[in-house]
C-alpha cells in the first residue's frame, strides 16, 4: 500500500492487462462483523522541483453485525402420526444469514387454531445426517443450536407426544422459534463452542459507536404469534396429522352340524358343532393396523372341537384355529392360510398387518356340550 508515486502525468490511455489480484466475488455473504475498515490516502507532489509526500489516515470503523436467520419447514408434507404415539417429530431447517457465527436459542409455540395440541415437553434434536431429514436414534438432543457458521444451515427436529382420543385428519401445528444469540466465546475470533451465548440486543436505537461491533436486525417476520421483522427471531410452522387405524371387530357364529340333522338345518343342541368367525375390519383411508392379535375365551357350555365327531354326514372336519381368511359380504370364507392356537379354553391367533379397507378373519369350531 505504499503509494509514493512521483508520478504519472494525467491519464495516458494505455491498455493494460493486469493479472487480477482479487477474485471478482468473495464466496461468503458479507464482510465478517468486527472487520476494521481503515481508509488511507496519500498524496505526492513537488515543490520547487523537489518531490514531497504526505499521508493521512481516516477514521477507522468496524463492520457491524447484520443479524438475520431463517427458520423454515423442511419438507412439504405433514408428519403422519397415530393417536397416543410418543416421540413423534416435525422437522425444520435453520439457516444463518448473519455475517458472523451465531448460536440459535430454540423455543416453540402451539396455537389454538388447530385441532389438538401435542403433549409432554417439546424437545429438540439436531439431525446428524445419517438418515437426512428423518428423526432417528443417532440425532442429538439439544437445547440450542451451537455455533452455526455464517451462510450455513442445520436440520432440527421438534419432538413431542400425541394424545389419545384424536381421530384421523386431526392436525396439530407446532411453531419452532429461533432467536439469534452471540456464539458464546469472548472477543474475536474466539468461537465459544459448547457455550450458549446471550441473545443479541438490537443496537439500532442506541447511541452509535464506531469502534464496537453493534447489532442491526435484518430478519423477516416469521409465523410465530409475536415474531415481527427486525426483532432477532424467526419462526416457521410444521404440522402433525393424525392417521388412525379405524378397526371394527365382529364376531359371528354359525351352526354347521348336529348329531340328529347332520348338515340339513342343524340346531344348536348338545353335540352340535358351531363355527365362530371373528372378523377384523380396517376402514378405508386409515393407517394400516399392524401386529393385530386376537384372543377369545370360549364361552361356558362349549368345548373346543378337536377330534372328529361321529354322526350323520357330513361331519365337519377339525380345522383348528384358522387365521387370515377373508370375507364376502357378511360371510366368512374358508380361505385362511394362517394358524392360531387354543389352550385352556382360550383361542388366540395373529392377523399381522390389516391394511386399510381390508377385513381378515380368525375362525374356530366348538361343540355344544
Amino acid at each position, binding site marked *: *500500500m505504499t*503509494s509514493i*508515486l*512521483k*508520478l*504519472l*502525468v*494525467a*491519464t*495516458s*490511455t*494505455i*491498455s*493494460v*492487462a*493486469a*493479472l*487480477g*489480484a*482479487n477474485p*471478482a*466475488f468473495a464466496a461468503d455473504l*458479507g*464482510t465478517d462483523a468486527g*472487520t476494521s*475498515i481503515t*481508509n*488511507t*490516502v*496519500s*498524496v*505526492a*507532489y*513537488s*515543490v*520547487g*522541483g*523537489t518531490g*514531497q*509526500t*504526505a*499521508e*493521512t489516515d*481516516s*477514521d477507522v*470503523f*468496524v*463492520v*457491524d*453485525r*447484520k443479524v438475520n436467520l431463517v427458520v423454515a419447514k423442511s419438507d412439504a408434507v405433514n408428519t403422519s402420526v397415530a393417536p397416543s404415539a410418543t416421540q413423534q417429530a416435525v422437522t425444520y431447517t435453520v439457516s444463518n444469514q448473519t*455475517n458472523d457465527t451465531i448460536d440459535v436459542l430454540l423455543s416453540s409455540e402451539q396455537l389454538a387454531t388447530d385441532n389438538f395440541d401435542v403433549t409432554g415437553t417439546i424437545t429438540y434434536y439436531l439431525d446428524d445426517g445419517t438418515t437426512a431429514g428423518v428423526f432417528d436414534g443417532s440425532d442429538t438432543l439439544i437445547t440450542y443450536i451451537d455455533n452455526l457458521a455464517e451462510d450455513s444451515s442445520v436440520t432440527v427436529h421438534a419432538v413431542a407426544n400425541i394424545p389419545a382420543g384424536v381421530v384421523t385428519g386431526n392436525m396439530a401445528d407446532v411453531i419452532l422459534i429461533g432467536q439469534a444469540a452471540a456464539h458464546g466465546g469472548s472477543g474475536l475470533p474466539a468461537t465459544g463452542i459448547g457455550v450458549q451465548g446471550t441473545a443479541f440486543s438490537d*443496537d*439500532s436505537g442506541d447511541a*452509535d*459507536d*464506531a469502534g464496537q461491533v*453493534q447489532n*442491526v436486525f*435484518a430478519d423477516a417476520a416469521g409465523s410465530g404469534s409475536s415474531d415481527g421483522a427486525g426483532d432477532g427471531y424467526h419462526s416457521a410452522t410444521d404440522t402433525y396429522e393424525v392417521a388412525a387405524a379405524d378397526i371394527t371387530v365382529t364376531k359371528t357364529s354359525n351352526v354347521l352340524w348336529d348329531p340328529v340333522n347332520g348338515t340339513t338345518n342343524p340346531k344348536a343342541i348338545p353335540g352340535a358343532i358351531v363355527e365362530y368367525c371373528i372378523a377384523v375390519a380396517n376402514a378405508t383411508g386409515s393407517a394400516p393396523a399392524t401386529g393385530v392379535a386376537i384372543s377369545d375365551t370360549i364361552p361356558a357350555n362349549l368345548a373346543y372341537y378337536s377330534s372328529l365327531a361321529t354322526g350323520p354326514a357330513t361331519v365337519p372336519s377339525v380345522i383348528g384355529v384358522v387365521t387370515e381368511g377373508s370375507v364376502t359380504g357378511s360371510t366368512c370364507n374358508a380361505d385362511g392360510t394362517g394358524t392360531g392356537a387354543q389352550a385352556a379354553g382360550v383361542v388366540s391367533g395373529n392377523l399381522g398387518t390389516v391394511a386399510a379397507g381390508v377385513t381378515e378373519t380368525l375362525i374356530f369350531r366348538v361343540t355344544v356340550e
Partner: protein
Amino acid sequence: MIKAISLAIALMMPGMAMAANNVSLSSDVFVERKVAKPNGTTALILEQPTTVTPGDKLVFVVNYKNVGSAPATDFSVTNPLPKAVAFNGTSDGTEIVSIDGGKNWGPLADLTYLSGNGNVRPALLTDVTHVKWTFNRALSAGSGGKLVFRGTVK
C-alpha cells in the same frame, strides 16, 4: 474536471526543500442512508459510519489544500481501497484505477483482467484495488479541493 487553479504563479525557490507538510490532506468516510421525510419522499443523507453492515453504501471524501507558500506541481492523490469495500465510482470521473495492487494504472475502461486460467475480460468496478487522481496543473499556494468516491461494504 478538477477545479483548475487560475493564477499559476510559479515561484521557483531554487534548491529549497520545503517541509513535507505543504499540502494538508484529510479523508472522511460517510455512510449513505435513505430516510423517509415527513412529506412522504425519501432523502439520501450522509452520516458518520457508526453502524455499518455488509451492503451499506459508503462515500469517501478527500479534502486537500496547499497550505504552503509555493505551488505544488506534479500533484497526485492515491487512495487504496480498503479490502472490505468494493469500488463504486467517483463523482468527477477523472480518476485512474489499478486492479493489480497499484502496479499498473489506467482508466477502468482501458484495463483488462487476466484470470488464473488465462481468460482475459474487461476489468470491472469490483476488481479495482486503488484509485488515483493526477493533476495536470500545479496546485497554487492556498488552493485546495475535494475528491469524492463511493464504495459498497462487501
